């Protein structure tokens, strides 16, 4: 029987997505075995994130810098803005290194059944960024789900009055699929085939 502290660590890890009790116990055993180096390293990394983590006031990305690394990267194309539902989608797209512009994280998708309304998403902030000027193209990179595509349609309509080109990820995304789970080849294809809305 493990001590309470070890049990607590195991149960905290078990709640992480993709882990579960079995993998958590293995991770704890590994940490115990490599406690000399691995534990301080992990503690320091976690502490650093806890102290500095914040949501980027500009795009909604989560980073330890303000504004985030993407918004403050001057090599990125400020004229192109990619709108995503969640931070995980931003990371998935950016991992693929295919999009060189900046992002806007909505913080969810419209869903009447889940009670998520336009004012619950950062839509006003998005319109504000577009209104401020300097943006030529808005890429709507919503998931190919009912809620994702409904949100894209809604945004396209709200963006209609602005002098920007509004494009959308092309079909070719697996139906019901979530960006976070796609391989880079599929993502690349979807991004290449983006097209005007309406």
């Amino acid at each position, binding site marked *: 029987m493990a001590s309470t502290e070890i049990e607590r660590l195991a149960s905290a890890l078990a709640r992480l997505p993709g882990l579960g009790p079995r993998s958590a116990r293995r991770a704890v055993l590994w940490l115990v075995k490599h406690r000399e180096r691995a534990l301080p390293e992990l503690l320091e990394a976690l502490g650093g994130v806890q102290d500095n983590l914040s949501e980027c006031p500009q795009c909604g990305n989560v980073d330890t810098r303000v504004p985030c690394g993407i918004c403050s990267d001057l090599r990125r194309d400020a004229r192109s803005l990619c709108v995503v539902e969640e931070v995980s989608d931003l990371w998935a797209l950016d991992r693929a290194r295919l999009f060189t512009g900046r992002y806007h994280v909505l913080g969810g998708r419209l869903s009447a059944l889940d009670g998520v309304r*336009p004012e619950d998403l950062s839509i006003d902030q998005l319109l504000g960024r577009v209104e401020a000027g300097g943006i030529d193209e808005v890429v709507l990179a919503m998931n190919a789900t009912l*809620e994702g595509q409904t*949100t894209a349609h*809604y945004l396209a309509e*709200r963006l209609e009055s602005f002098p920007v080109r509004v494009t959308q990820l092309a079909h070719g995304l697996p139906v019901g699929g979530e960006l976070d789970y796609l391989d880079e080849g599929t993502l690349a294809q979807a991004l290449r085939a983006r097209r005007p809305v309406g």
Partner: protein
Amino acid sequence: MALDRITLSRFRNHAETALDAAAHFNLLVGENGAGKTNVLEALSLLAPGRGLRRAGLSDLAQAGGAGGFSVGASLAQPDGADPVRLATYARADQPNRRRVQVNGAEASANGLSEWLALGWLTPAMDRLFSDSAGARRRFLDRMVLALEPAHAHHSARYEAALRERNRLLADEREPDPAWLEGVERHLARHGALIAQARARTVAALVDELATLPAEPFAVPLIALEAGGPAAEEDLALALAQGRRRDRQAGRTLTGPHRDELLVTMAGKMMPAADCSTGEQKAMLIALTLAHAGLAARGRPGVLLLDEVAAHLDPVRRAALFDRLRQGAAQVWMTGTELAPFEDIRGEAAVWRVEGGRVMRA
């Protein structure tokens, strides 16, 4: 034969059951509760969906066991190619997840319909014509699905969009038009595909039924009464125009979720619901046979007939056996005794079923 080397493990009252050397006609004979229909149900799970009892997965595992079950069958291939092994199962640690394997590789349940066309008739369907319109839509959708596997996908997406629209309309505040329009585009796209697929299936069934003799089975005349426009643009427009009305009604009043399958008895021109029990059963058999004929084009067909033969008079029974003998579909039938099957006994594979065990007779 289409299906052979059938195995049931921890399925309902069958601990370990194997059926080998199947024939064109396959008879399962035994007392009520012996486990005959459970074998048919197991076979019905070699198609997408919830099988012929529409049961939850957790109800399928043997009672008192560790949970989980498996069903497998070999499917003969044309030209002497190796048979394909189909299997569906739920694991004890994840009893609510249905898994499918084709030749040992994970596959989707929808993929099963590429291999096999399954149809069935059970005593629970006897009340179909007097049941709700929804029950007849489900009956029709199962027939559509066997012909057009994409139907399941469009139905699921349509249902989701319908719930979303109804919730939006139920809101105290006036719903946002741009939001509604986004949802209605989904409804229109998938709804039109559903309506068109149903219309195609009904038209094909009408053609097939027209070739049937009027005797000894009552021939049904079927028609689809559309619950909304079948063209995407028209349906989108109807939804947009119906917003105020639907908001008052508290639900969406146009669209294929309001379709109705109309069934009338030819000759008498009487609504099926008003016909005698025997006539209703005869029309159900005619529909099932017509569909089996359509579905089995291009892939092997299997028909599961639960307690059908015993309730027919000898003339109709002989006619049914004749039709089934000429048909391409492999037939699995149940009965409490062997006597009604006398005409086909010589050519049939017969099993006695007792207490969840089968013995070749």
